[in-house]
């Protein structure tokens, strides 16, 4: 890494930290609002506003007290240090019904968590999102854009169409899914994020980075950094499986393999797919690190790789067309050296197109 590259990287990292850090402290919004209204309109009206607001908050707080008394639940696993007070809500409901929360009464910073039942959060005329059982999410903003950070589990949402470019965002670590009128579901699965789109269009990608549009019906798997891990089904570039089918030795039952559902994949095939996925993710990471991303300048890295794998599962050689830069190639070689496929009867070749927009 050259000194200049190190500075660039340090700057990017500091900007990221600043973004994460500079969320304003808890603001007494009721006080600010009351004072503002007094300044705008004078005593009587602002006092009415203040009373109305207070009344509303008394109702909200009373409801919250009932709720908290019934089911207050703190995410101990997420509280490794003393944290600013967060609302954590679980609601009681008849056994057959999901819990329900008024999204308009939830403040920024609230943590919504579900137990064995779903929690439905409704923002009137804007969006309704549903936390699957055993899930939790932090409400990051409730202004023009409702932003929900999924801590664990799954969230699905139905977002009312709006003229805004985006009105609802789900963030999972550094992956961002933005929508303005659609129905979709986001699952946090360990170190990946799965997005399933039922209606409309959504944009997925890294926080602060370039986004990819998905059109319903479709789905995508992303890393927690927002990089897409699966190959878009509509992509004209050959997928790994296509590459394998053209150059790998015949499968034991090719016809069956071609039509069998995913759950019928043998353990050997599964191990091979896992190794292939690890390899692809690693090389994508090499590309991501090298990709230039400065301001609104976006650089797309695209290459086609052919990986020759010996019968013992070790990578014999790999080629990239167009070739990778020396630094990325070194990184890719290091990835390939660590990959071991399950032993097979014969050597085979994996061909795949790789693209990264950064």
């Amino acid at each position, binding site marked *: 890494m050259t000194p200049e590259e190190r500075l660039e990287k340090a700057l990017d990292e500091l900007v990221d930290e*600043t973004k994460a850090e*500079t969320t304003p402290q808890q603001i007494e*919004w009721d006080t600010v*609002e009351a004072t503002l209204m007094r300044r*705008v309109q004078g005593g009587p009206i602002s006092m009415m506003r203040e009373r109305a607001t207070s009344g509303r908050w008394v109702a909200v707080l009373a409801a919250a007290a009932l709720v908290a008394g019934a089911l207050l639940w703190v995410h101990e696993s997420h509280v*490794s240090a003393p*944290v600013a007070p967060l609302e954590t809500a679980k609601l009681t409901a008849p056994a057959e019904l999901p819990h329900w929360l008024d999204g308009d009464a939830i403040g920024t910073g609230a943590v919504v968590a579900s137990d064995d039942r779903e929690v439905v959060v409704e923002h009137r005329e*804007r969006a309704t999102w549903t936390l699957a059982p055993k899930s939790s999410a932090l409400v990051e903003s409730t202004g023009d854009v409702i932003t929900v950070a999924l*801590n664990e589990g799954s969230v699905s949402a139905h977002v009312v169409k709006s003229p805004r470019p985006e009105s609802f965002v789900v963030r999972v670590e550094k992956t961002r899914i933005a929508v303005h009128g659609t129905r979709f579901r986001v699952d946090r699965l360990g170190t990946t994020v799965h997005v399933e789109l039922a209606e409309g269009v959504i944009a997925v990608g890294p926080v602060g980075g370039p986004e990819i549009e998905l059109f319903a019906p479709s789905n995508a798997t992303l890393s927690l950094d927002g990089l897409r891990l699966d190959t878009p089904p509509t992509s004209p570039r050959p997928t790994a499986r296509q590459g394998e089918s053209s150059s790998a030795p015949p499968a034991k039952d090719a016809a069956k393999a071609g039509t069998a559902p995913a759950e019928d994949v043998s353990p050997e095939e599964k191990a091979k797919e896992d190794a292939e996925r690890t390899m692809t993710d690693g090389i994508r990471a090499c590309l991501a690190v090298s990709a230039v991303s400065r301001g609104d300048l976006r650089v797309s890295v695209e290459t086609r790789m052919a990986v020759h794998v010996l019968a013992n599962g070790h990578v014999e050689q790999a080629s990239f067309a167009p070739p990778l830069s020396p630094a990325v190639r070194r990184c890719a070689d290091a990835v390939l050296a660590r990959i071991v496929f399950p032993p097979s009867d014969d050597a085979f070749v994996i061909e795949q197109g790789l693209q990264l927009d950064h």
Partner: protein
Amino acid sequence: MSDDVQDLVARCRAGDSEAFCRLFRAHRDEVARLVFRMNGSRSDLEDLVQEVFLQVHRSVGDFRGDARFSTWLYRLTVNVVLMHRRAAKSRPQLVGDETASPPRDPRLLPDEQVARRRRVDAFQRIVDQLSEKKRTVFVLHEVEGLSPAEIAAIVGAPVLTVRTRLFYARREVMGLLGDDPTLSDVVNGLESERPPLAANARRETT
């Protein structure tokens, strides 16, 4: 009652205080965030947010809808913060008046939180050294994530000028990074000593 911004703005212009209140609630978070990032200080945050919305109330009649409301609101916010900072220069500076702590990130351990706070403070001091124009575009682009075209509309400058300011702002900040004792550690130890923020968060949440 629709919460649509255009509708709210129209009703505000007609003197509907309820609509103004809704507008305030809908945009207060983003204004507070921008004020905080532009001002680089937690003191005066609530006063400045109030000041921004007072300006909104006074000027909403001038908003003709040519630009997006959010762009107009950003412009007002930037101007309020710049005016405040200019005025503050002529007043005695208070040191250590940061009475409120920022929310803690539950994904970080306490020592990591403190270390990050120190880095962010040091970084803000560096950004503060930029000229007003460069600092404005730097914060709006790098931290707020706005495009040069959006920033151009906010600051009233050509896009090319914004890009130029961004380029020099970024270069200037990079030049200052290595000189800061806190941040030189970040630069020098980037590859080996400190895991990136994302790795910290991932370690805790997975």
